[in-house]
């Protein structure tokens, strides 16, 4: 059971809400049972939920990169990742998406759209730096060749046939238009 004793042992900061007397409400808490919490025993109940934001916090991390913050938070968390800050068109879309809460489709669908644009940006970025991606390797096809060769050959044959057919059709339509 939980627990006055556990409450008393809990780390105390500016925590006094849970200890406020509620005796004026007849029967207040009489049937409270922390073991009836559906998260029990995974949650070691200590009353901290009712203390809201009055908990000890780490020092604030500094950064010189842009961190997008959920609008369901008052401030940025004390610690965060600073990798791959938003940039380009995808970054604009991400900033826009973060103007909506996590409960909205605009937030999530905006981010998915940004991801797809970011993929093209990444490719352009590579090429502009003189780096030509090795798609064969990046798609992991050496593993397909090693462990699934029959299907690999089948896929390659179908791909080649479709490409050749498309080229033939294009040439044919070009001749007709002349």
């Amino acid at each position, binding site marked *: 059971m939980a627990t006055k004793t556990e409450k008393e042992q809990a*780390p105390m900061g500016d925590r006094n809400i849970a200890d406020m007397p509620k005796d004026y409400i007849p029967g207040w808490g009489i049937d409270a049972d922390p073991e009836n919490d559906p998260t029990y025993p*995974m*949650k070691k109940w*200590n009353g901290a939920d009712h203390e809201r934001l009055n*908990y000890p916090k780490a020092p604030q991390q500094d950064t010189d990169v842009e961190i997008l913050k*959920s609008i369901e938070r008052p401030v940025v968390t004390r610690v965060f990742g600073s990798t791959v800050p938003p940039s380009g068109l995808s970054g604009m879309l991400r900033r826009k998406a973060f103007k909506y809460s996590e409960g909205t489709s605009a937030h999530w669908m905006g981010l998915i759209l940004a991801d797809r644009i970011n*993929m093209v*940006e990444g490719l352009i*970025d590579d090429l502009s730096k003189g780096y030509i991606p090795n798609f064969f390797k990046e798609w992991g096809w050496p593993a397909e060749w090693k462990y699934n060769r029959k299907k690999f050959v089948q896929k390659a044959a179908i791909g080649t046939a479709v490409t050749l057919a498309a080229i033939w059709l294009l040439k044919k339509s070009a001749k007709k238009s002349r």
Partner: protein
Amino acid sequence: MTRERIDYTDVLLPYKNMQSSGTALLPKSVYEQNKVSMLAMNFRGPYRIRVDRNKPEPKIEHPYDAIVRVTRSLICGSDLHLYHGLVPDTRIGTTFGHEFTGVVVEVGSGVQKLKVGDHVLVPFNIACGTCPFCSQELYGNCHESNPEATAVGGFFGYAHISGGYDGGQAEYVRVPYADVSPMVIPEGLDIEDAVLLTDVVPTGYQAAEMAGIRKGDTVVVFGAGPVGIMAARCAWLFGAGRVIIIDRLEYRLEFAKQYSYCEAYNFTEMDDPVLFLKKQTDWLGADVCIDAVGCEASGSALQTITGKKLLLQAGAATALHWAINSVKKGGIVSVVGVYGPPFNLVPLGSALNKGITMRGNQASVKRLLPRLIDHVMAGRLNPKGLITHRVPLEEVSDAYHLFSAKLDNCIKPLLIPPKANAA
């Protein structure tokens, strides 16, 4: 205590724009001359990843940070959701990997417990230890590690909706709140067991724990991936009377049968898995069902088209649908399969009418570690038995494809960085 570092600001300055656009490409000569960079997996878009030799090494960004040289890392089934482009805000240039062990090479000024040279296993949750959720041992729900979302805590190497941290499929990783979750690997614990204790084992165990299994219960696990297999194995620890696992891949079912001592059935050989399970459970339904599949389930054309092809919902919720329909009235459905954040099509009407309890959470790894280490050391659990492929980090794109396409009977691929055994 800190390792000796050189100021590379001037060297890196011309490449600042490249880093911000996520490519982090430095000329090889810079890497070789200045040794500022490391080998790291680099996400380039759905189904496209590569390993770069020139990603800048992580640095201490907060007094509670540590830098860890990775010794082992794993590819998780949930990494495949990123790999397949299903998780929002997965930015080009991100390094994945939330299951890893490593040696501490540098610590921030506020770190007191860890020291340089410690070989640690790093739980996938980034936890502050003091917020209302951490202080109640819900370390998977930390409120001070992810500014970009409130529904999910901070994780290593996942989409930016998990905090924007790089992951362990690299040579070095920044580990925030180093005194809270990371744990020095106990003497006698195999490193391959240790790396599996960062996610797979606790997630499988917590799936069984959340299922509220009572002695003699019939437990159905959907999904014979590493977590499902571990959940089935752990169900016995809680006294299950019968454990059934459902999947579509014969090699995985065969593996699960051997590893988890359970019954294994292929749903592609059934007209209706729910009906099959009702017949198997005296027409009442299973006492508990565990969804260890998540958003990439097969088995329903409607779910596949709307969830995986058109992205009209956050992946295909087929397994969860089956779980709700297969559990008994008043039964418990435990969810550890990963779903995207927006929404999914599930039969909530049935959940209400049957009075079932649904429980789900990210595993609270730190809370579970002492118990699980005890199970491993005593031989009750054998995590490293799940590893089927050991791959150099340099071949990470092959490893992803192998795991994703289920080639060569792959259950769990382990990545080994070139500096894994450096002194």
